[in-house]
Every structure is written in C-alpha cells, then in structure tokens.
C-alpha cells in the first residue's frame, strides 16, 4: 500500500500539485488519469523519489519515504519496478542484459540463477527466446513487454507504469493492460498506472484517481467513472463530439 499525504509541489512560481491525498491499495491496479499537464507525471515522480515534494509525505507500507536520505531510499527503491513511457531500456544492452541488470547490481545470484530468472520473466511477457535482441531491433509493444519483464525481475512490491500504452495500437495496448493486471493480481503488488487511455481505465482500473489542475478531483472505480456527473470527468471521458452524442443517446434510452 502506498499512502500519499498532503503532497504539494511547485516549480518556480507554478504550483503543480495541490494537497494531493490518495491511497494506492495493494493487489489492485490503481489508475491516475487526467489531461496532459495536470500533474500526473509529477505526482508519480514525487512518489518514486525523482522529485522531492515541497510538503507532504509518501509512505510505502507505513515507511515514510520522503524523510529518508539517498542511501535509505535505495532499499525501498529496490522494491519498486517502473515501466516508463518510452520504455527506457538501456540501448547498449541486449534484452537479456537489460532484464539481468538489476539482478547483477543488487543480488548475489549466480549466472545460472540470473539467467533462469531472465528466462522466466521473458516467458511471463511472452517473449521467450528474444534474449539476444537489442532494444532497437524490437517493436514498441515488445519494448514495453521487455520493460515489464525488467520491472518484475526483482519481484517488486510496487509497480509504476507511466502511460504504458502510449504509441501502441489498440490491440497491443490491451495486451499490455492485461499483462499489468495479471502481474498485479498474481504477485499481489501495488500497481499505479498513469494513463490518458480510456480503454485502459475500463479494462483494468480497480481504483481511479482523476487529477485536474493539480488537485485530487475525483476518486472511484471504472464503473462509476462512466456514470458520474462530474463535469470535468465527463469532458475528459467523452472528449469528442461523437462520444458526447453516444452518451446523450445512452441517457435518452435510460429515460
């Protein structure tokens, strides 16, 4: 479980996050949604420690992360897996080396044990046998799956996914979504997904946090987001005229 308590963050005179309070539950896929520039990525970077919040507290299973120094944070960071928007695979390393990297850095596993773990993770994301490819030789969807394999190689307790579907076709996006959901349930981890993609919200959103103007605007689940009357959410969910028409016709049918 990750608790975000009264987080505020400014860059110069611009306040990006205003008193954000939210709890991301264990064993569930927690989505953070909102329009571009509303502070979703900044919130995630504050949670994982890439940005230091101005005020507030982040707790990982009760452990205060914000008050720790660099060395103390390291221990918690080794429990975090992260899938970046652009995958962030190390382009000078092969697929195998990418996945093996955290194991080499932080475990005393033998070469064979590490290789077994790499093969297990690759198998888990349906990429068995792709060990010797370079990231540049892989498609966007494959790169995301490799990044997921790397993220789970250390058996993380917390998984962060920053727009995991960006740049992917709808079918591949669903594959990635399902993979994230399966891994969350299978390993009982706390997963936080930043997304714009409404398909993802409907597909995997156990808990949904809507951020608007840097504020915690709305919380609920994937069903209630469809039925809410909150205007900002409706503008986000039904952004196009076509979707608005569909919603109107649905409401008329209900009447």
């Amino acid at each position, binding site marked *: 479980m990750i608790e975000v308590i009264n987080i505020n963050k400014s860059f110069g005179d611009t306040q990006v996050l205003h008193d954000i309070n939210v709890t991301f539950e264990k064993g569930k896929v927690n989505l953070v949604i909102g329009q571009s520039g509303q502070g979703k990525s900044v919130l995630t970077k504050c949670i994982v420690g890439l940005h230091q919040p101005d005020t507030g507290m982040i707790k990982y299973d009760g452990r205060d992360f914000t008050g720790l120094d660099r060395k103390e944070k390291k221990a918690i*960071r*080794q429990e*975090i897996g992260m899938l970046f*928007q652009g995958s962030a695979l190390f382009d000078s390393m092969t697929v195998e080396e990418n996945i093996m990297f955290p194991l080499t850095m932080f475990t005393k596993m033998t070469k064979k044990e590490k290789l077994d773990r790499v093969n297990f993770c690759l198998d888990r994301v349906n990429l068995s046998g792709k060990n010797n490819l370079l990231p540049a030789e892989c498609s966007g969807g494959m790169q995301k799956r490799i990044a997921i394999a790397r993220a789970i190689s250390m058996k993380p307790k917390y998984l962060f996914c920053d727009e995991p579907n960006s740049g992917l076709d709808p079918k591949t996006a669903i594959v990635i979504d399902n993979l994230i959901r399966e891994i969350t349930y299978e390993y009982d981890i706390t997963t936080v997904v930043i997304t714009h993609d409404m398909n993802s919200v409907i597909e995997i959103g156990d808990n949904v946090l809507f951020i608007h103007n840097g504020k915690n605007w709305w919380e609920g689940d994937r069903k209630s987001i469809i039925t809410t009357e909150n205007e900002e959410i409706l503008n986000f969910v039904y952004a196009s005229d076509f979707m608005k028409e569909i919603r109107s016709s649905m409401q008329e049918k209900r009447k």
Partner: protein
Amino acid sequence: MNMIWIVFSVPEKWGVFRERLFHEIKFIGINSIPIVALMSTFMGGVIALQTASNMDSPLLPEYTIGYITRSSTILEFSPTIISLILAGKVGSNVASEIGTMKTTEQIDALEIMGVNSLTFLVLPKIMGSVFFFPILIIFSMGLSLVGGWLSLTLSGLASTETYIVGIRSFFEIGNVVYALVKTVVFAFLIVSIASFYGYYTKGGALDVGKSATRAVVSASIAILIANFILTQMILL
C-alpha cells in the same frame, strides 16, 4: 560541485565497475588511437619542417632541429593539442551519450532501481580517461618524433644521426612528468565537463546536440586556462 562528490561515491558493485572501466578504456581510449596517431605523426612532421625552414643562421648546429621538435612536442603539442582534439572527440561523445540517456529516461530508470547513476555512468569514464590519456600522450610523443624524422629524412633537410642527436640533447625527464600531469588534469576536465552537460540535458534530440557543443567548447576553454595555470605552477 555536489555532483563531483556523488560521482566519487563507492560503486554499488566492484565487479560491474571493473567491467564498465574496461569498456570505457576501450571506448574512450583505445578507439582514440587512430586519430591520435594520425594527428601526432603529421604534427611532428610539420614542426620539424617548420623548424628546419626557419633555421637560417649557420651558427646554429643542425641537431637543433631535433632538439626543438622534441621540446615542442613534449612540452606543448602532444599534451595540449592532442587533449584539445580529444575534447572534441571524447567530450562530444560522452555528453551526447549521457544526454541521450537523460532524455530517454534511462537515467531515471537507473535511479528508480536504486543505482547511483552518476557513479555508475561517470566514474568509469573519468577513471578510464585519467588512466589512459597519459598512455595516449606518450604514444603521441613517440609518433610525433617519428613524424619529424620521416619528414626531415624524406625531404633531405637533416640526417637521421643529427636528428637523433638533437632529440637526445638536454633531455629532462621533468618535462615528460610535467606533460603527463597536464594530461591527467585535462582528461579529468574533458570527461567531467562533458558528463555535467550531458547529465543536465533537458528536452530532446536538439538539446542533446546543444549539450555536446557546449561540452566541447567549455572543455576546450578549460584546457587552455588549466594549461596556463599549470605551466605557471610547474615550469616557472
């Protein structure tokens, strides 16, 4: 300044550090041998020819050509000019490599894993260059002298014997030490400045290019200033 302290933190895993150090020695050092060899040979040849062409006085012994070629090469041309060339080659390479890693979130990925990205990426580059640049400069000194000999003997301006007498005359090992001390300082400046610009790159591909340019310009200026200060401190 804080960045330098973090860079010199103890590496997370010595085995990984050793692997990266050898990689950087190959990447930064060994891969620079061809350009250093080419530059040094021609530089030595030109110094010898210019010295010979400017020696009009019959009172000056012929071996002076070898003496001046050696002194210019060891004191200035090899350590400073070759370091300026390396600032261009290695500096732009380091800045763009780290800058690209920054803009593609690879450095964030390292940090989130709990890896000290500065120590992991920058320390092997600094150590590799500080270790290998002096070897490159000694190599450069040797090839410059060979270049001088080739140009003089092929053009018939001096014989091999007089040239060798010249390069052996009034030799002081202190001058070589001075050159190597300068080289170590220049190596540190080139890689640390390039790493700084790369690490603090913000934006995209265009900004990576700008960082690389800034790194080369700043490193070159730093070399010239450090050269002046070190010459004052050591030679005078």
